[in-house]
């Protein structure tokens, strides 16, 4: 038993952070609010790091890395509030296409691996998803009906606005003729595994977002003075921030554990992903509240960067199953299906 990231994984996190620190500054995140498309330049930099190819097996030209490696990257994506569809493209769609073992997957997969295109996914009867308007490949993953992907024709999708202006949402207004590439049990399995990865990836981003918001608040509380001393010296402020820290400290290992179990295809992997999403959603929304409260009015201003992180948090905490939904999944498994500890 060894519960720690490897040296390679720590280095990976650092490499991604180094790139994002330069190319996903708060000013860049803010600029993404007034752009309808992602930054091709930034996506190319992520592709140089191999990010879109991480979960694609080597026989498909990918890097053949694990969900744990991917989660290490997504934590950094969250930390910098990167406004690019890493979760959708690299964590959800690329491994789904690879695992579909269909000839139709080869072309879009190759373009994703090459960093040429990004992707989006609609689960079951959903119509709105991140990156849908602008993605070159859209996957419809329906557990009971099948899995189909297509390149949206002009006018097939339209832009929707998120509270997080950097999160480009889209709606599918003209679905293609239903002609799934995968059906039956295989489709159900692909969909279930993609949903688990979606929840897990969002959880990893949330841990990064939460930590970044807590760091902002701690830095601010050290320098902002009231009553002649730093506000961070007041117990009421300390306790808000300490509680946020505890929640994040306990959420992060849950995310790493779920990633490792997913990569092992362990029996408790799906439950672990739900657990991770539940606790990361709560920890990040709690960190957002604490950070806002400790910033006071400055944190409530549009000029301050906090809201960029906070609004991403509000969106991701509910995306791919909010905390209550994920706890309900865990409840169904442990209370109704007897999947407790052995």
């Amino acid at each position: 038993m060894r519960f720690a990231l490897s040296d390679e994984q720590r280095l990976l996190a650092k490499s991604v952070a180094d790139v994002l620190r330069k190319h996903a500054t708060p000013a860049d995140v803010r600029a993404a609010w007034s752009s309808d498309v992602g930054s091709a330049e930034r996506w190319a930099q992520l592709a140089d790091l191999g990010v879109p190819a991480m979960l694609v097996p080597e026989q498909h030209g990918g890097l053949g890395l694990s969900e744990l490696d991917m989660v290490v990257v997504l934590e950094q994506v969250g930390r910098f509030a990167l406004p690019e569809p890493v979760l959708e493209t690299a964590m959800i769609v690329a491994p789904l296409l690879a695992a579909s073992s269909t000839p139709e997957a080869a072309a879009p997969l190759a373009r994703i691996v090459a960093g040429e295109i990004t992707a989006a996914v609609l689960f079951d009867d959903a119509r709105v998803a991140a990156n849908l308007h602008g993605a070159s490949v859209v996957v419809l993953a329906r557990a009971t009906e099948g899995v189909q992907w297509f390149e949206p024709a002009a006018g097939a999708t339209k832009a929707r606005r998120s509270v997080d202006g950097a999160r480009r949402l889209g709606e599918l207004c003209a679905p293609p003729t239903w002609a799934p590439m995968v059906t039956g049990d295989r489709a159900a399995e692909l969909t279930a595994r993609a949903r688990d990865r979606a929840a897990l990836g969002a959880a990893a981003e949330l841990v990064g977002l939460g930590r970044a918001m807590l760091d902002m608040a701690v830095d601010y509380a050290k320098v902002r003075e009231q009553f002649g001393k730093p506000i961070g010296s007041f117990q009421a402020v300390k306790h808000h921030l300490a509680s946020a820290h505890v929640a994040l400290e306990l959420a992060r290992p849950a995310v790493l554990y779920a990633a490792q179990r997913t990569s092992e295809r362990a029996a408790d992997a799906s439950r672990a992903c739900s657990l991770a999403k539940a606790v990361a959603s709560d920890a990040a929304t709690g960190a957002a509240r604490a950070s806002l409260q400790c910033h006071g009015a400055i944190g409530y201003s549009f000029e301050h960067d906090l809201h960029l992180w906070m609004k991403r948090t509000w969106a991701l905490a509910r995306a791919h199953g909010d905390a209550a939904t994920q706890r309900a999944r865990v409840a169904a498994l442990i209370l109704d299906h007897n999947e407790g500890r052995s």
Partner: protein
Amino acid sequence: MDLAYTAAEEAFRAEARAWLEANVPREPWPSGDTREGFALHRTWEKRLHAAGFAAVAWPKKYGGRDASLVEWLMFEEEYYRAGAPQRIAQNGIFLLAPTLFEFGTDEQKDRLLPRMAAADDVWAQAWSEPGAGSDLAGIRSRATRDAAGGGFRLSGQKTWCTRGAFCDWVFGLFRTDPAAERHKGLTYFMVPLSAPGVTVRGVGRLDGDEGFAEVFFDDVWVPDADVIGGVHQGWDVAMATTGSERGLTLRSPGRFTAAAERLVALYRSIHGQGTPVDTRVRDAVARAWIEAEQYRIFTLQTVTDVRDGRGLGAASSVNKIFWSELDVRLHETALDLLGERAELDDDAEAAGWMKGFEFALAGPIYAGTNEIQRNIVAERVLGLPRK
């Protein structure tokens, strides 16, 4: 990352499980926090010791079996899963012993640890005083040097000593330099409760058991050999002990994962009888189970950190805040499931949960209140200014 256990570890778990299945009493025992219950629990400690399970992570020569931290976690999981008796020896084995391993002399270890493992001596903590609770550095009990006698003379009062009315020894801090400021000038002593000048008075706890004691010291002579660490160095020694208490060794995840499984079983039995369960209570059951699992996973990381030489330090406060608050929520949820049955003191199942709830309520208070723990996290982990 490697979540697998070795064959040797799994064999250890199987051995512990088999022994516990064969030896754990079928009928629940009276609380170890009563005089009769304590005596019965001492016999259990002796059985554990005879089987080599009293202090599995200790070296063999002191009564342990050189188990690794991972094996210790496994033993704890199996122990609580089996519903084995309360550990009345825990404050010695899990709080004092780590301090002795770090600061004790060979003579002290040889003399004290084997008797501790065998429950020949059962230890109580003596931290708090009437005027010093969360503000531990405010203690006023004194120890005066008796150079001619090769020891010290202790005077003062300690309070909230768990099971102090039944234990054999206490450990705690006494002020050896009255002129020194607060946490300086303190020394860590071990005192047999049979020493002349010691008076022990049992105090009833919230649950009615005589689980607390006040201990009065009236010119009690203690030899130099019963000082741990240097004279006036007691604060640093004590911090090592409180680190153990807040951190890993006092409350292993096994205690909470077992309680969470019992909560799931309670849900099933109530639900299975056709009693409708409110969706919010069902959500709370899931939350409690999730939090216990989170603590289990978090501890795998902690154990790895400790093994790699990264000590817990102030991060042990994170631990303490989390397990103490999850324990309260878990037991509250059980009472919510029981509904009107929860108050029935003559219903064994309900009374067991209520007693567990009452005990859980102490968690955010003992070992340094959670308010103090949050100060520690804020100041020593997040780096916020002390004042």
